[in-house]
């Protein structure tokens, strides 16, 4: 077990409204999390330069850089800390925008406290699983078909020698598929394991991520040998490739 995982997870709350920030911080503290607060995007980015945390609860409409911008900047800097967006704008287009900027989950204001805490737990559980599943030297690296993926560094070297930077979702999908090597994994299982319950409107998102993985790692993405589609069900990963 990772010793860091045993300590209370540290959550950074980035919210410009003092009352809401205070309420969120108090509740997270009551649940046993260690908490820190930032009231704008610049402050959050500065804090994250020197400190690591397990989760960022990020308001979207912040003064200065907005929440989407903060998340994008973090991902560009190679920071894969999971992000839970809190926002007053809850329409589906905004939701997708938030997730495309690299967020893990999205909660519209006003929200239910229990649901918020549930989502925080779910994100941390998913990351905990990912980290413990990549903890040993044997599980941290996956080699298949001339490709080599480093799950801890979110980096890979493709069969043609090209260096690849993986997003956390790509890495997580690959991890789930590799853990169930040779077995069929349904789209719903992938969604549940990687995103949680109702984050994305459709399972088509999973299909798009599989296409991206094929482009990165298959010699002929049109005729995949490792990431196989099982029509109407889901996907199957073959480490040694389809004969």
């Amino acid at each position, binding site marked *: 077990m990772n010793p860091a995982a045993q300590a209370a997870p540290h959550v950074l709350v980035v919210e410009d*409204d003092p*009352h809401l920030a205070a309420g969120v911080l108090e509740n997270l503290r009551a649940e046993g999390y260690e908490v820190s607060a930032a*009231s704008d995007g610049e402050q959050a980015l500065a804090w994250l330069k020197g400190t690591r945390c397990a989760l960022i609860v990020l308001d979207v409409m912040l*003064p200065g850089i907005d929440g989407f911008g903060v998340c994008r900047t973090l991902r560009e800097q190679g920071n894969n800390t999971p992000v839970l967006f809190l926002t*007053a*704008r809850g329409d589906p287009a905004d939701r997708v925008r938030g997730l495309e900027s690299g967020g893990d989950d999205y909660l519209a204001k*006003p929200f239910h406290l229990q649901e918020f805490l549930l989502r925080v737990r779910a994100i941390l559980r998913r990351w905990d699983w990912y980290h413990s599943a990549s903890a040993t030297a044997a599980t941290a690296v996956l080699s298949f078909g001339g490709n080599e993926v480093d799950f801890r560094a979110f980096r890979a070297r493709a069969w043609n020698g090209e260096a690849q930077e993986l997003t956390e979702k790509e890495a997580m999908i690959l991890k789930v598929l590799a853990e169930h090597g040779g077995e069929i994994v349904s789209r719903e299982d992938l969604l549940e394991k990687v995103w949680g319950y109702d984050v994305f409107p459709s399972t088509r998102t999973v299909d798009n991520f599989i296409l991206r993985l094929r482009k990165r790692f298959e010699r002929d993405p049109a005729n995949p040998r490792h990431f196989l589609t099982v029509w109407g069900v889901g996907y199957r990963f073959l480490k040694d490739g389809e004969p």
Partner: protein
Amino acid sequence: MKSTRVFQLTTLALVLVSVVQVGWWLFDQRTFTATSVAATRSAYAEQAAAAQALLDAGTSPPRVTQLLPKIVVAEGRARIAPEVSAALDAAQRSRGLQYAWEGSFFLLALGLCIAVIARALRAEAHVLEEQDSFLALVSHQFKTPLASLQLSLETLALRAPAPEQARVLIERMLADLARMELMVTQILESARLERGRVEFKSEPLQLAGAVARVIAQLEERARQARVSITASIEPQLQVMTDPLALDVVVRNVLENALAALAPVGGGSIALSARALFAEVELSVRDSGVGFAPADGARLFEKFTRLHPGGGGGYYGTGLGLFIVRRLMELAHGRVSAHSEGQGRGACFVLSWPTVADAAGRRP
């Protein structure tokens, strides 16, 4: 709104059809003139040929020109008289010019119609866009205190907190409710101001008295926030404005200064006034968080909050300074904000016309 738009679009379509019609009319008239002149010229050419035949048959030239007056005979050859040919050219030119003038006039009038309708359509689209963004912003502004209220209530229900913690939560909820109430008041006020539905009186008012009244109302809050407010205003200074508007303007600027002082844990607000030519100028200087100099103008736009919440007990709605600007405009005055940068305080300057100058403005 919808029927107006249908009317505007239908009119625009009709005007565009008219433009095409005028264009076609111009082309048609020009072609018709050219064809008519060519037909006349051809008829004269036939007369010239007939005259030549008569000459060749032995008819005397005077007789030929008597029979065909538009034909001249020179050196045994019959041809169209030069003045007739010139008259035909002149007629064609004059018709062409007439149509060009008439057509241009019609096209110009239609062009103006299109410009007016297009402008109205653009203005309407802008209003709709503004309404949409206003609604989005209003809903955002409301959802935050609502979320805070819900969170506090659910915390009370979920955790059964100790009495002192419950008290904190209740005070927070009361503050959230007060915030929403202030927001409703300010949104209605700004909507009224934007639509010009305000009765704005203009009367001479003693500035020092009005400022002192507002300071007295905010004194307790300032004391709790460790803010000292000082005012140095000559009692004889008078401004021309509405008494209620003066109260709202001074209060909003002072509340903004209090909000700017909350994140730095208190400080000072100094008010001073002076008479300048035809104006009376009130400066409100605070030692608060300040702002980037480039943000000075943006502060007076709707829903701009450069230091939201600020970490203290006061919440801006983002409408206070917008209302100040509109009320100052109605009083023929001005407002501006200056700061040397974040953390370096700010100064708001309000200028009203003096009593004598405002009297001169009246119709």
